[in-house]
């Protein structure tokens, strides 16, 4: 069995063990590393002295695959990069392809994209809420979040035909129109969610144990966050109001009214609060979009023969941060190169400044707070 260099490095270190220090492997199979993240911890008692993330346990060659498939065929693979927010990863890719091909997207399609994108954000945040609670030991909150997620999935299923990986966005629009009765379904769900969010807040957010576990833990400064290229709730938790939907609006986001929730302290709690507020903002956006959605086609005019020319970088605000797709075309219908910029890949580097000096128990909270999806990190 071949050892990775990280392992051998640790082996070198352990030949001269410092006083009361212990090397601990957290992952790839660990209940709270959200998949197959591996952390190499050097601990003194339970205090983390240094840590190294080791990734690649879910590297699935997405970028290579994209080079060998035609444009439409890549979309299902995009789903599988960030499998918790399939819509937003599709969106970034589809936008890039549209720009390269010069395809116009009908207005209705943009509205539908915004609606499903925000639904996806809610779904992703619900899962994050659940797993974060589970990491902190609150099993019941986890199951409650999944309960709500299932009712959202019912809508998704009716709309797209799948539970998680939708393959719903198309170059030039979306796959199918909203079904009849979608409006009632989603509005009913939003009402329910608002009710349940109060419950979540009572159960977890207000809880003293929860507060003491999250406040002041995993602090990063604004400067650190920017220097490390953080985005999404991690950046906003530090007080930087950076949200592509507002700062660099794509699609029709500039037509909706919503706020960018911003944290204060850059700790786990701030990130948590930012995400909890984003639920409400997403609800707001969906309500507005449902009210103002125009009629018309949901799929634009797409040339039968697709040709990708040039290169383009598009970015989309996913639930985890900024997803970017760098797409290069050479005139054929297959991307010449498709690079996927994942926010969590970048955030992983922040684990070290966040985690050093904290306890192992805090590591769990920190990993949960940056909401890692390994499929997206490793691609």
């Amino acid at each position, binding site marked *: 069995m071949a050892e*990775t260099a990280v392992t051998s490095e640790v082996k070198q270190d352990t030949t001269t063990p410092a006083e009361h220090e212990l090397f601990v492997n957290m992952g790839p199979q*660990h209940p709270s590393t959200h*998949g197959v993240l591996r952390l190499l911890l050097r601990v003194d008692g339970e205090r983390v002295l240094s840590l190294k993330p080791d990734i690649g346990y879910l590297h699935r060659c997405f970028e290579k695959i994209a080079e060998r498939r035609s444009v439409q065929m890549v979309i299902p693979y995009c789903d*599988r990069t960030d499998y918790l927010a399939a819509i937003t990863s599709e969106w970034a890719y589809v936008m890039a392809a549209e720009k390269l091909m010069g395809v116009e997207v009908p207005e209705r399609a943009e509205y539908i994209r915004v609606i499903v994108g925000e639904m996806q954000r809610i779904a992703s945040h619900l899962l994050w809420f659940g*797993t974060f609670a589970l990491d902190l030991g609150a099993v019941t909150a986890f199951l409650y979040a999944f309960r709500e997620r299932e009712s959202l999935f019912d809508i998704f299923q009716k709309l797209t035909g799948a539970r998680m990986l939708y393959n719903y966005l198309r170059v030039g629009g979306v796959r199918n129109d909203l079904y009849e009765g979608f409006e009632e379904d989603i509005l009913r769900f939003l009402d329910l969610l608002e009710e349940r969010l109060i419950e979540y807040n009572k159960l977890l957010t207000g809880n003293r144990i929860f507060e003491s576990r999250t406040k002041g833990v995993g602090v990063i400064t604004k400067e650190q966050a920017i220097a490390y290229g953080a985005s999404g709730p991690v950046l906003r938790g530090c007080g930087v109001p950076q949200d592509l939907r507002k700062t660099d609006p794509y699609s029709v986001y500039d037509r909706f009214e919503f706020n960018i929730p911003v944290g204060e302290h850059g700790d786990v709690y701030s990130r948590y609060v930012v995400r909890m507020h984003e639920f409400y903002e997403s609800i707001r956006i969906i309500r507005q979009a449902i009210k103002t959605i125009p009629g018309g086609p949901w799929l634009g005019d797409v040339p039968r023969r697709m040709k990708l020319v040039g290169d383009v970088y598009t970015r989309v605000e996913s639930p985890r941060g900024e997803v970017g797709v760098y797409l290069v075309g050479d005139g054929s219908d297959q991307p010449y190169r498709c690079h996927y910029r994942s926010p969590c890949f970048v955030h992983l580097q922040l684990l070290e400044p966040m985690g050093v000096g904290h306890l192992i128990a805090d590591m769990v909270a920190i990993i949960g707070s940056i909401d890692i999806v390994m499929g997206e990190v490793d691609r």
Partner: protein
Amino acid sequence: MGLITHEAVPGVVTTSLRRLLNWSRKSSLWYMLFGIACCAIEMMATGASRYDFDRFGMIFRASPRQSDLMIVPGTVNEKMADRVKVLYDQMAEPRWVIAMGGCAINGGPYHGEYNIVDGVDKVIPVDVYVPGCPPRPEALMHGVLLLQDKIMREGIEIPAPAKG
């Protein structure tokens, strides 16, 4: 070596004891909390309230020592393959493996790519294959039911039902 071996031993006592053992094993399949990719999320959803694995007596254990069932939920790549093997080895016998999703069965959508191990059965023996990408929770539960059938037949000569 215990009284109960993997081979079928004829006899009323051993058979009924065997049946009891199989019943207990199939009714209390504790699965290892082991998430790899997309399917892991569906696995979690299966454990959640809507579908509830606990109805089958299945709860998750974090340590492989205490788990009976390893659900491999996701793509196994070259870097992960060794770890999967180690984890499987560390499970206490009797142990079973469900390959969940196309990727774990034979690479699925990623088959043939560099770095992808085409199926977890190249690394560890698999008992039940559950295709889907990812399989719905019901599909996974269907797989579990199949596994329960298989466990019930272990060591007893009951003709296997026609596959379907």
